[in-house]
């Protein structure tokens, strides 16, 4: 009877099995892989991707896509860094506004939310396909980053800020805590509140959702705004970790995020998937990257392997849904 439910469990299990097998293979091939230090290392490396991929999951569940998150990440990182470092100075008005760490971080997140909100607005009100709208934003946000930073990195902050990227808390890197918080919140959103249910309904059948009285535009705008905010969080972590906001930070991060979502079993046509799957997807990508580096595989081959894994994941997923 509930075959599809079992199937769902099965595909979740598949990702877990894949992850487990990867770990076994790398543990056998490299004695450096299966250590606590390396485990924490992997977790820290994937935490930024998880921040972005969680937002991406919400968007893809509505049958949308967001290509702009990498650039938005860079812009928000730069804005936070710039405000922290230089504040806002308007010599002509004899005005200077300085920013505390919290203020600068909030400002960065506000900028990310606004860009996401703009994405959502363009997609819903002007009916621009998400692919095109966010492709435009990818370019716009990157350009704005260059304009804001004049193309130079903004570097060296006090240790309270860099703690966000490089610090430790209760035995875990701070970015891991942040990512975990985001994941838990997102799981609650998708499973336990109305917004989450509406996201699944819209992705599953937008017509039926609209005729059920759901405000489709509002839900979509919210989802893109959330994704923008989460990209900003990612940007702040990256900036703090490197102690520098690079104008070309986050390039092609959107692809890693999409890869994590897809490997995690979320359907690109919307309505089906989970945050938990995305976390597993991000872990698989992270372990793969880390393992291949430890094995000294050339970075060129790493890309080939990663692409192959994405293909394999989608093909398996297709075969699963065909059996339904």
């Amino acid at each position, binding site marked *: 009877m509930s*075959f*599809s439910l079992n199937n769902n469990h099965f595909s979740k299990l598949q990702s877990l099995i894949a992850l487990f097998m990867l770990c076994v293979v790398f543990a056998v091939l490299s004695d450096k892989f299966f250590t606590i230090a390396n485990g924490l290392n992997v977790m820290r490396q994937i935490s930024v991707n998880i921040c972005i991929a969680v937002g991406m999951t919400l968007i893809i569940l509505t049958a949308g896509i967001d290509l702009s998150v990498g650039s938005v990440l860079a812009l928000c990182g730069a804005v936070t860094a710039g405000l922290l470092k230089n504040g806002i100075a308007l010599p002509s008005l004899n005005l200077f506004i300085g920013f505390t760490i919290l203020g600068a971080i909030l400002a960065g997140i506000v900028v990310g939310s606004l860009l996401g909100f703009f994405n959502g607005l363009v997609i819903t009100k002007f009916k621009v396909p998400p692919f095109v709208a966010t492709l435009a934003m990818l370019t716009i946000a990157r350009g704005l980053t260059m304009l804001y930073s004049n193309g130079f990195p903004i570097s060296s902050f006090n240790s309270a800020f860099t703690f966000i990227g490089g610090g430790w808390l209760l035995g875990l890197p701070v970015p891991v805590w942040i990512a975990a918080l985001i994941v838990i919140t997102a799981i609650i959103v998708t499973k336990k*509140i109305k917004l989450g249910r509406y996201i699944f309904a819209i992705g*599953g059948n937008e017509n039926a959702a609209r005729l*059920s*009285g759901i405000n489709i535009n509002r839900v979509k705008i919210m989802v893109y705004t959330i994704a923008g905010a989460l990209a900003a969080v990612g940007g702040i972590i990256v900036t703090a970790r490197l102690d520098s906001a690079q104008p070309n930070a986050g390039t092609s991060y959107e692809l890693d995020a999409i890869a994590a979502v897809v490997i995690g079993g979320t359907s690109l046509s919307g309505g089906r998937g989970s945050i938990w799957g995305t976390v597993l997807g991000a872990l698989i990508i992270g372990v793969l990257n880390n393992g291949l580096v430890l094995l000294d595989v050339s970075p060129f081959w790493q890309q080939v392997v990663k692409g192959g894994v994405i293909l394999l994941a989608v093909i398996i997923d297709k075969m699963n849904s065909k059996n339904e």
Partner: protein
Amino acid sequence: MLVTKNITKKFPGVIALENVNLKIDAGKVTAIIGENGAGKSTLMKILSGVYPDYEGEIIFKDQPVNFAGTADAQKAGIAIIHQELNLIPYLTITENIFLGRELGNAFGILDKKAMHAKAKTLLDTLHVDVNPDTLVADLKVGQQQMVEIAKALLLDADLIIMDEPTSAITEAEVETLFKVIEKLRSENKAIVYISHKLNELFKIADNYVVLRDGKTIETGLMQSMTHDELIKKMVGRAIVPMQKELADANAKELLRIENICLKQKNKASKLHNISFNVNGGEIVGVFGLMGAGRTELLETIFGVHPAASSGSVTVNNKNITIKKPADAIRAGIVLLPEDRKKDGLVLGMEVKKNISLPCLHEVEKMGLLNDKKESTLAKKHIQQLGIKTPSENQVTKNLSGGNQQKIVLAKWLERNPKVLLLDEPTRGIDVNAKNEMYKLMQELAGKGMAIVMVSSELTEILTVSNRIIVMAEGKITAIIPAGEATEDNVLKAAISIN
């Protein structure tokens, strides 16, 4: 030219055609006549190779045939002009006419000149004065229909099936079409002509075949028939009306519709000044043939076409501005859409999640969705409506059509609507489920709801309605109280244009 022997076609749960025997002669126009759902389109789809699976035998030009697809049928010499236009909007007329049959040389280079010239000749025969290089998207619907006909002419088929070819064209174009048909007839081709417009049939057809409930009822010469006799043959059966309580004269008016119009950009007007009212406890049936604007009427009331529509909706003596479905729902109007799979349900979601979708606030507990509350709510409706499902956690797509339809109803009942708009509530569900649906509707009306039911099944309309609104070409042509309604006068009103 073509003979069918005992053609039977079954769909899951429905027998669409049962032992249909036809004889179509060369040099004659054969009219196929029947109500909506009589099986005309299914039969034509079998003849033209759209449905390769059926029981029975088709003999075409003295050879038994079994077409694997439309290309197969075309090769044998059968062309069909479908009711829905099958043209590609951003290709030119020439490109559409020659699609899949392009002329070219041995190297695969297209011979545009030859195609252009041939297209021009075809358009000339049809008196269509348009450059063949025009994009189909830039044509009027009537002209598109003519292109569709040109496409069939190019095939030089021996049997041409025309499914409602005049539904979108002007009278002058109809005249031209008839001249073309006469010419084809003189060339000894066979024409099968399907139309709801009986006047046309008397003008052009030689023979007729009446289909009813998937069976051939009668065949004969058109000359020996009259308009009224033909309608009687289409309808044919005596029906036993259900025990119907007469609408309470003192009942409160719950829904009033005034001057509803619908005109979408670049399209013909779909609704003209529709006005009517519905009282609490009353079931109003809306009947009309294909394209009469029934579905559009319900959708417009429900706020699906806010930009293209005008008119006023009053619920319970309060004038309501409806800009989107959510506004209608808030005012107490709900819609059971025509296509439950496309518009009614999220098929991949569990039963309980579909039921709770419009009323999620009711299953919240401190801002979080509460699984227990949701299950309780779903179970309540599953029990009340008799939905057959292993549990409320079943994925909706695994249920039968009738049960899916009840889920759509369930999700609305939780909102205690005042006005229930039902669009083909029993489409594609079996007889038992239909009867259950009728009983439910009467129960709901008994509780004081105002129900508007659109249906293309005349029997259904007569069975459940207290009052019948008949529509044709976007207008109301008759409003008939249940006591005076017969199949004859309802169908006449539905065909009554011209």
